């Protein structure tokens, strides 16, 4: 696959502070560009704050494509990845992101330890806090759990997925991957882009974060799922729901398939995977219904042959042909996570304009 052309980036990333890309652009000064203490959900971000993170990530995309992928921006800082739910890909992505920035990264696999009960969640948070982490990345199986911990610790917290609520870095990396694919076609904006999200919407935090993120960037979002996997009141989030996959695909410029999350299902939601594939599997024939040059996405891990066929998942078209950007998504994941870690630790690193006093004076809401 040909690498997507990049946005203009400086030859070497700056050691600290905002990148040239975002510095010269339209963002508010200093901490006002991203006045949040942590990243708990897309729902609490303004559009310009989303764009800021995307622009900040570009420098790390560039870095990650060089042979020497290491900077010392976060040297001396400790980042704890506290994963209360099993994860391979997201954990790896955060670990690489932290290490490439020069931080000391520690992984806590709480899912495998005794820390499973909700009763100890606050105690775990206090313990992590007492170890003076400079940032904590948390994944937890219950919606709202990350916010609960964030309220108890002093350092920035990044939500790496909480229950069925939000997975903000996934939505950001999807937006970044999408923007790269569109730029390869000479298109800068997502305004008016027709995106279809299909699959297990009910159990998907990826769907929720993506709906919010894509809409904030101006895209038009359709969601498609069988009735049992379509959450109630989803239309009030401003999306068009449908049960008919063919109708949902018609004219779609982007098709984002979701993983069928059998492990989250309490009771039977679909009769069989075979039947699910018949109704909602993305096959090459089905993909014909989408707009020419459709972009196929999947947050992974894929159930090949269930929600997506291998030939579609591996579709390596040119910039203007139908193509899958699933591996680009993974690549962008590291860059987005580097951007989040770098931006959120600016305060503790004393980056000018991002310090506590300055922030207070300039009215930043450290919320």
């Amino acid at each position, binding site marked *: 696959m040909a690498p997507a052309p990049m946005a203009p980036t400086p030859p070497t990333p700056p050691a600290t502070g905002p990148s040239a890309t975002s510095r010269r652009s339209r963002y508010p000064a200093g901490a006002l560009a991203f006045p949040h203490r942590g990243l708990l959900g897309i729902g609490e971000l303004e559009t310009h704050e989303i764009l800021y993170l995307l622009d900040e990530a570009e420098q790390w995309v560039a870095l990650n494509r060089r042979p020497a992928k290491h900077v010392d921006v976060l040297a001396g800082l400790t980042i704890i990845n506290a994963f209360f739910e099993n994860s391979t890909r997201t954990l790896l992505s955060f670990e690489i992101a932290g290490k490439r920035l020069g931080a000391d990264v520690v992984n806590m696999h709480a899912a495998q330890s005794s820390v499973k009960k909700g009763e100890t969640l606050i105690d775990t948070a206090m313990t992590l806090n007492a170890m003076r982490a400079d940032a904590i990345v948390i994944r937890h199986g219950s919606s*709202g759990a990350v916010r609960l911990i964030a309220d108890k610790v002093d350092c920035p917290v990044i939500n790496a997925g909480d229950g069925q609520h939000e997975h903000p870095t996934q939505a950001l990396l999807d937006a970044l991957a999408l923007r790269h694919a569109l730029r390869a076609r000479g298109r800068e904006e997502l305004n008016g882009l027709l995106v279809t999200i299909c699959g297990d919407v009910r159990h998907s935090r990826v769907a929720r974060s993506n709906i919010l993120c894509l809409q904030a960037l101006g895209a038009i979002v359709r969601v498609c799922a069988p009735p049992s996997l379509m*959450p109630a009141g989803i239309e009030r989030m401003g999306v068009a729901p449908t049960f008919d996959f063919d109708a949902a695909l018609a004219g779609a410029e982007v098709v984002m398939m979701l993983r069928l999350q059998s492990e989250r299902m309490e009771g039977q939601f679909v009769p069989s995977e075979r039947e699910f594939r018949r109704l909602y599997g993305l096959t090459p024939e089905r993909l014909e219904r989408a707009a020419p040059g459709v972009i196929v996405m999947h947050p992974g891990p894929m159930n090949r042959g269930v929600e997506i066929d291998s030939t579609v998942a591996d579709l390596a078209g040119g910039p203007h042909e139908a193509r899958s950007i699933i591996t680009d998504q993974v690549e962008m994941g590291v860059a987005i996570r580097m951007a989040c870690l770098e931006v959120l630790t600016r305060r503790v690193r004393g980056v000018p304009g991002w310090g506590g006093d300055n922030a207070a004076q300039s009215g930043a809401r450290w919320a």
Partner: protein
Amino acid sequence: MRQQRALTIIGGKVLTRSGLQAGGVRCVDGMIAEVGEITPHEGDQLVDAGGLLVAPGLVDYGVFAVDKPAFHFGGITRAALMPDRPPPLDHPARVRFAAQSGKPDFWVHPLAAATIGLEGERLAELALMRDAGARGVATGRRWIGDSGVMLRLMQYAAMLGLVVVAHSEDAGLIGNAAATAGEMATRLGLPSAPAEAEALAVARDIALAEMAGARLHLRQVTTSAALDLVRAAKVRGLAVTAGVTPAHFMLSDLALQDFRTFARLSPPLREEADRQAVLAAIGDGTIDLVASGHDPRGPEDKRLPFADAAPGMAGAETLLAMVLTLVRDGVIGIERAFELLARNPARLLGVEAGELRPGAEADIALVDPVRPWVVDSSRMAAAAGNTPFDRQPVEGRVTALWKGGVAVES
């Protein structure tokens, strides 16, 4: 503690069955002797109400804990205790113990567990528990899914003259839901169940009660569709009554914002249209009583991810003030407020209380109906401060309370 001296309260506005009237109440031997314009007798203990409301002590139909400081703060002198306790009230000895647990200054009327362990399978010893002091039989905080068990329960309870207190949520639909299906639950990613789960359960239980000739009390009816079913059953003359807690007429599921676990209730908060339907049902008499559902829960139960937190709210202290908001908003009059809070629940319990009339127990609250205060979850009389009304300014406070003619120390 028995009343030693006769008590005469004068100079108040007395809530009687025929409405508010100036005057007072005279109590002798723990009972109300006279109501209205009374002349104190020689040697009576005299209390001047100072123009405040002289009201019956509240009767709280359906609480989950015996928490006297909170009950007394709220002017509550009796409560029907739900059987959901560790261990459940499914044995006569436990019922007998619970019935004594509030005396002398608070009376607990236990509701017997309908089934052993509240598991919805085998009937508990209802007759023995009735003789031990149970004033009704309750399914607990869950629905009995097996209609055969429910029918036999109703038949048995009807024979024993016990009211069946049902929880109305279809278990198959609710699963592990923590919220009502809708925009809020979807945005927060919470496990949710359709509001119709309530109407389904209510429809079945009304049908079974009609078959069995049982008296059915639906402890909380919170949706428009279920209230319509209750309304229709009442028109047909069935012995069906309905209750609700203030949360369901004060709040909608918007209160779940930011995963506030103090708003995690069972049944869960509903959408705004259902809240409006509850208000209408209180106004038109479909809802017979308002209870606190008092269930104090500390941080170990509440400072958890929303779906993992225990349902329930500490409601005793705010019960009166919340119902008085309905008076201020013109939904009901003051007489109806105390019908909902005292007279109707007392009648459902079958106790001589809940109203100010000669021959009733001298459970009396002196109420300043316009005294303003602010609900503060960190400074509550209750065993825990899990109120969804934190920081809300309200009006109406109990300034003095008597149980059986004896002043309650607060």
